[in-house]
């Protein structure tokens, strides 16, 4: 399995004007994504977890080219997506597709379901060498609706006539119609009931088996991510604080924030005894980052160094990386000792 997507030190800073009158004031950077690096293996599922405002959607948008990074580079199938010409752009749009949380918001309310699903084909496959006829498009749409288990009669319906789960399946059909190799799924099941959620997650897993698709799934629901993804990145205020094999992270989370997330996760087990409160305080502001580690003000295990030095993401073995002085610190000290004195 080769790498399909690679992010190298990707940043997205927003300029926020604060204080003063319109046009005046100081511009401050809001560091929505602050140096994300990882790669995704072709055909795998990569999960992104983290609380509200941690930069998950911003990162998704950068990968979808709905927004441009202010630093770093994103490579897809070996090509830098920041340097695509018009043809490259058209190519990218057929390879990578998106499904968002709010299906009703992303489906045009004035279009019939058949037209919504056919639209990407109308844009990308009506011209060029692989041109499709109207009849072929219609056949493809019917086939795709069948694959997402929607009855044929909904073809002529408008989005508002469908249930939430049905609308999400329409969004998936539309994303799949160009036969992409990768889907970016931003909270695809968060708005759905338990039973409908199971249907949509099964559908996504069927598509992956059938077409060898790669998924990047963003969610704040750790149970869903744990079920879906093989690799997991945990974000906090624009930074990836822990990344690695999903099952291993679930078994042994290392970063205090990851640990807190798991402790806070409600489980349908009445016999589980919950220990100490998972976290104090509120998630901080990306506009007013604390000095040192961003998580430090909420961390129970913080040491003096944590409020002074921003920890780097370091390899801790077994494909895991963690950005925490507690984890990286002792190991680094040991290494320095062995090397003699450099400092």
């Amino acid at each position, binding site marked *: 399995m080769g790498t399909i997507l690679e992010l190298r030190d990707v940043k997205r800073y927003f300029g926020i004007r604060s204080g003063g009158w319109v046009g005046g004031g100081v511009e401050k950077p809001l560091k929505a994504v602050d140096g994300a690096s990882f790669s995704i293996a072709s055909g795998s599922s990569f999960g992104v977890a983290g609380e509200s405002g941690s930069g998950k959607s911003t990162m998704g948008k950068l990968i979808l080219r709905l927004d441009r990074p202010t630093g770093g580079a994103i490579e897809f199938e070996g090509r830098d997506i920041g340097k695509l010409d018009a043809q490259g752009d058209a190519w990218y749009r057929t390879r990578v597709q998106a499904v968002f949380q709010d299906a009703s918001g992303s489906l045009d309310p004035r279009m019939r379901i058949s037209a919504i699903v056919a639209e990407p084909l109308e844009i990308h496959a009506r011209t060029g060498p692989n041109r499709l006829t109207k009849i072929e498009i219609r056949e493809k749409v019917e086939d795709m609706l069948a694959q997402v288990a929607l009855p044929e009669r909904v073809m002529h319906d408008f989005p508002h006539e469908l249930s939430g789960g049905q609308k999400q399946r329409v969004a998936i059909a539309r994303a799949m119609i160009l036969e992409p190799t990768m889907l970016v799924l931003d909270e695809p099941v968060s708005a759905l009931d338990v039973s409908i959620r199971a249907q949509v997650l099964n559908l996504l897993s069927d598509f992956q088996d059938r077409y060898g698709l790669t998924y990047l799934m963003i969610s704040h629901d750790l*149970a869903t991510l744990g079920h879906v993804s093989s690799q997991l990145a945990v974000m906090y205020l624009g930074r990836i604080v822990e990344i690695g094999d999903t099952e291993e992270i679930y078994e042994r989370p290392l970063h205090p924030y990851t640990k807190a*997330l798991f*402790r*806070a996760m409600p*489980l349908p087990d009445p016999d*589980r005894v*919950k220990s100490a409160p998972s976290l104090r305080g509120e998630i901080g502001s990306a506009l007013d980052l604390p000095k040192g580690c961003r998580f430090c003000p909420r961390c129970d295990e913080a040491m003096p160094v944590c409020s002074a030095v921003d920890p780097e993401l370091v390899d801790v073995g077994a494909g895991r990386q963690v950005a925490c002085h507690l984890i990286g610190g002792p190991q680094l000290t040991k290494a320095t000792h062995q090397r003699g004195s450099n400092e």
Partner: protein
Amino acid sequence: MTQAPLLSVEDLRTYCYTRAGVVKAVDGVRFALERGDSLGLVGESGSGKSMTCNSILRLLPKPAARTVGGRVLWDGRDLLTLSEREMRRVRGREIGMILQDPLISLNPVFTIANQVGEPFRLRGAAKGRSDLREKVLDVLRQVHIPSPEARLSQYPFEFSGGMRQRTVAAIALAGSPGLLIADEPTTSLDVTIQDQFLRLLRELQEKTGMALILVTHDLGIVAETCNKVAVMYAGKIVEFGDVRQVLTSPAHPYTEALLKALPVPGTRQKRLYQISGEPPNLLDPPAGCAFEPRCHRAMQACKKARPPIKRLSDGRQAACLALEAGEVR
């Protein structure tokens, strides 16, 4: 003679009148709560959870919905027969409420101090301005609002989502209610903030003996917060009992299916259990059991009549013919 329960809902029926027809949103709901009880109300979207709460509080959308039958016994009175004026005194004082959207529950043009102080003023519970200020600060501290003194003159938009939700809780608690009705109070919150909020509710229950009705579709939240659970389907309670009983050995096929459909970490290769079919059309519900078309245990008889809710030998209640016939468990 045994003491009457704190709250007793009997055969509650609330119908919605829409252009397309009548929806029996709440169709014969009954349950009872004791002091200190914490009831989790779960079920699919549209199953009637909010309508049940709003019927108890008599806050139904007018004229779309009307309670057409049943009794809500609270403190020796039937809330459904009270005058609007009497009912206003019950709400916010005897029964607190946290509704789904905190932004709707808070008034954007009044300060935090003003809104949290309102229940005290209504009750005449504060002796003068400084006493009121102290009382407001006290509840803000109870719900863990950081530096409350500095927050008094702020407006809701200056608060984070978690702080707003806790402020709504502060207002609900300012009346020292005997019962708190919370409709999906944590849906818009992050897990760690949600965890703080649920701990707060449990803390307050322990301290004051307040009873709680918590609407959620997260069975994890129920397991953590509640001692009783009611599972709703198409306007009816289909299973009611002790949380441990219901979540570890569900009796009703719908409860069983709900639990099986939950994604569990570390089960990547496995397919999730799927409830087949779609939720019932409440405008034209099946004549028999509403879950029958999706039920893998359905029998011929299930199509004919809706099963009544009955007490099982282990004390819980469930509405299922297959259970009565001894087909399950």
